[in-house]
Every structure is written in C-alpha cells, then in structure tokens.
C-alpha cells in the first residue's frame, strides 16, 4: 500500500532521466546471482528509488525488462510495499512513527506540529518540493519514542522543538541525525 497520497505539487513532472547504464549493469548482475530473475525485482526497485527518489513508469519498464517480468506484475509488487514510491516525493522525506509506543509518548502532538509548520497533511509534499511528510510503522526505537526517520537518519525522543529544528535544517539543506 503506497503511503504517498498525492503527487508533489512542487516536483516538476517533465521527462524522467534516462535509466543509467551503471544501474542497468548492477541490476543485471543481481539478476544473474538469483535463482530466478524476479528475485532481484524488489532490490532493483529500492536501488533505483535510492537514486531518483521515486519509481517512474519509464524506470519501472526498464526494471521489469531486466527482471523478465511484465510491467503490471512489477507494479503489483511496487504498490504492495510501504517503502516503494510510485509518485514523486520531495527533496527530504520525513517518516514519523505512528505505532503504539510512539502514540503513547506523544506522537500526535509531534504530528500536529509538522502539519502546522509545513502546511500539509500526512502523505503530502510542501509546495516548494522540500519536504514530504509520511507516517511509518514502528522503527524499533520505542525506548526513545516518539521516533522518526528523516531521509535515512533516525531520530528519537522527538518533541515539538525537534520538529522546528529539523524543518529549519531541511529548508537550509542539511539534515543530521541525533538518535
């Protein structure tokens, strides 16, 4: 189930960048090491998304070809998983845990602060394309709840002050973890 609800208004649609040769080689190599080609599909999508932020149709078609699958088959997998984005996301992706331990420790307040400061709801991207705000399930950081991921950095004991600081950092282009 995709958790990105709406396309990012700030992200230009345009023509997707060409599928790079090094990525094509890497995926072909992964496929060669699998018992069946499709075994590489999920990691191929993760790898592509890591490079481009999301999975556009053109790239999906390339991956499907490399994994000897139909585009529909591959899309069926992409739309099943939480962490694969079939819509563009912002420069930064904030994932705030909304599972039980974080909820018990004040996640709703943190969530409200994000929504208020960013002017968006969960699942949306700011108009300037800087930040996509998403819910995520338990991050295994429950002893430091509430927890969140900002891009790949884990944050614990998040409060409204953390939210303000992180938003400032994202607007200025440098995000560092403090888990």
């Amino acid at each position, binding site marked *: *189930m995709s958790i990105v609800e709406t396309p990012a208004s700030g992200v230009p649609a345009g023509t997707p960048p060409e599928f790079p040769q090094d990525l094509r080689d890497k995926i072909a190599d992964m496929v060669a*090491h699998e*018992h*069946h080609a*499709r*075994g*590489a*599909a*999920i*990691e191929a*999508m*993760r790898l592509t998304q890591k490079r481009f932020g999301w999975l556009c149709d053109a790239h999906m078609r390339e991956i499907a070809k490399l*994994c000897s*699958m139909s585009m529909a088959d591959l899309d*069926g*997998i992409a739309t*099943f*998983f*939480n*962490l*694969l984005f079939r819509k563009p996301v912002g420069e930064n992706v904030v*994932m705030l845990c*909304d*599972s*039980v*331990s974080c*909820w*018990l*420790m004040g996640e709703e307040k943190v969530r409200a602060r994000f929504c208020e400061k960013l002017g968006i709801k969960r699942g949306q991207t700011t108009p300037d394309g800087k930040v996509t705000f998403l819910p*995520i*399930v*338990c*991050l*295994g*950081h*429950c*002893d*430091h*709840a509430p927890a969140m*991921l900002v891009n*790949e*950095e*884990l944050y614990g004991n998040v409060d409204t002050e953390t939210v303000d600081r992180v938003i400032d950092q994202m607007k200025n282009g440098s995000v560092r973890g403090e888990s």
Partner: protein
Amino acid sequence: MDEAERRPLTAMIDRAAGPPDCAAYERMGGFRGVRRALSGMSPGDVIEEVTKSKLRGRGGAGFGTGPKWSFVPKDPASQRRKYLVANGDEMEPGTFKDRLLVEGNPLQLVEGMIISAFAIQASFGVIFLRGEYHRGLECLENAVLEARERGWLGENILGSGFNFDIHVHPSAGRYICGEETALLTALEGRRANPRSKPPFPQVGGLWGAPTVVNNIETFCNIPHIIANGADWYLGLSACADGGTKLYGVSGRAKRPGTWELPLGVTLGEIMDRAGGMQDGYKLRAFLPGGASTAFLGAEHENIVMDYGTVEKAGSRLGTGLAILLDDRTCPVGMIRNLEHFFAQESCGWCTPCRDGLPWVERLLNAIDEGEGEQEDMDRLADHVRLLGPMGRTFCAHAPGAIAPLASGLALFREDFEAHIRERRCTYQDAA
C-alpha cells in the same frame, strides 16, 4: 559465572564504540562456536546440542529451534539446494531487540548462521532486514563483506569442505513479511502473501527448496550454545526453557529500554531496570510481547515472563518486549491505534482479515470520537469471534490483531461504555 557470561548475546555490544570487526570479535571470544562445530561435530550433533539446550524461537511463536531444524531433509549441502534465512523484519510495534543485535554485534549473527547452516546443510543464507534499518544494513553488509574476505563465508570454511554465503536483503516494508512464508514470497519477488502449510518451509521453502527461517535473536544464541554446551545454556535461564532473553519495556516507564536477562525473570524485575513508572503515572495494563499479544491487567505486574506462564495468564510472551498502558492514557485510543496498524498491514489475501480489520478500525474510530453506538460493542465482539481463533483466516495476522481487542474489551469494558454513553473520549481532559 561472571557478568559477561550471564548475558552472552549483549556482552560484546558497546554502542559508543560500534560493532567489533573480525579480529576484535575473535579476541572477545567469538568464532569459538563455529570452530567447534566445523571441526569434529556432525550436522546431527549440532542439531542435538541445540535441541538439548531447549532454545525456543525468539521471534514470537516460540517453536523449539532444534526440533524445527530436524524436519529438514538430511541430504548433504553439496547434493541439495537448501536455504537458511534470518528473519530481521522486526516490525512488531513495541519491539526493539533485533536492531540492537544487528547494529551492536553483526558478526555474532553471521557466526550463528554459519553454524545453523552447517547443521541443516544449507549453502545459501539470506538476512531479511527491515528496510528502515539503514544503520543496521550498513553494519550487516560490512560484517558479511569482512567475514567473506577472511574466509568465514564462502567456500571450504575452516577447511571443512562446507560452503556457505550470506546475502543481505533489505525489505521494501510490510509487517506481513515477518510471517515466514510471506517473507519467502517476498524474497521470490512477489507480493508478500503468506502461503498455505503444508508444505512447511523446511521441506518446500524458498524457490521450493528446503528452508529454515529463524529470528535474528534466535541465531545469536547458537554460537554460545555450541561453544559452551547445552548444559551451560540451560543454566542461564530461570525457567524450564534455556538461555537468556532480550526483555524490555516501552511506554511511560522512567527509563524504557531493553536488557538481556535470564529467560523467566518477572516483569517486576524488568520494571526495576526501567526504574518503575514515571512519576504521576500508574501501570494499568500491558501487552507482554508486542502489539499482537493480549493485554494483561496490572495485577500481573509480577508475572514470570516465560512462554508457559504468560500463556496460562491468557496472553503470549511474543517478542518479550512489553508495552505499558498507564492510568492516564485512554485504552480505547490505544486499541484504536493498534487496530489501525493491523488493518493497514493486512496483506489483503483473505476476506475476513482484509475486510474485517478495517471494519474494526472504523468502529473504534467512531467510539473514540464520541460517535459510537451501543450496538458497536456487539459488532466488535462479532469480529473477535470471527477473526479470533487460529484457522478462520489464512495466517496468524488476524488472530494476532484481534488479541489486544478481545482482551481490551474485557479489561476496559467500562471505558468503552463511558465513551459511548458520554459521546466523547473520557480521557481528553486528563491529557
């Protein structure tokens, strides 16, 4: 026994220093188990030692690890393709133990997997890791790379003629991947729907080949069992099952955390580590081992946290990390949060789970927001009955999902009734 020996799984973990490399790991006593297994023990000997240790799976179901392995066809690795899979899809809300093991001492997992693979004669290993564990992925990939460079992985390990290598697979994220057959389906590049059993994975698992799936914490026990023997391992625990356990608490404790303690300590002893409840909060109830275990009331605050005792009390030990409900938090809201998670994470394969859990979520939303009707209580009870016992749905997702609801309806009946009667959340002023 000194302090380090009493907590073998975490003794080498130093969060500030980062995970040990091969040399440091060996200096601290690592690789003794794999040396012993590969020089002198037969695969059958290893399975027997693990069976004698009474190690039970640490992922939640608590199945005996030795017995699980014994169902795998005995053909040598050279003659049959077999797989060993580490389940590191730690996604049970309130569970934070595998991340510690993976980030703290990844080589311990690697060593445990080499020994286990030798026992079942598997040549292919996979570590299935939460996609959100970016630091854990880096630690594991480094550990696997270094172990391969130093000959701990690859061909002819320790000159034994046994070949084994590990691939690390970061998940794309769904709770159902923690279910072992769904995990295998995901590894095959498909939507992670569970499969029907039989065939069990030990006979027909990944790509149809014999496969064993064990939790990460389970594997981390193996080097110590083989290095020190089953009797030593049994002596670590405070109950009939062997070993230590990573216990923990989250919620309004003074110092939430996870600690390696003898299997079978009481919740009271765990709470002592956590410094008790925060000032101004009392323990009302708790989920003993993750979101899919039934609530136990505060009268069980000194319960023995072993598999048998928790089951007798009406819940499950699960992952062993308890979630605390305090007296100032709305139990209806908490159950609403839990069922939202389970409804979202249902894979959608079977109708009762796909349609039943969102229905439960909508009913709880209504009650929590002051729009509930008395009949909603009957609807909730219907769902408990229809989704509850194992066997009405395709896998264990729905029965797990319904456990906190079923127990919550009994324990917090008055709170549900008050929400419906007063048409509001009765905790809102307190919060």
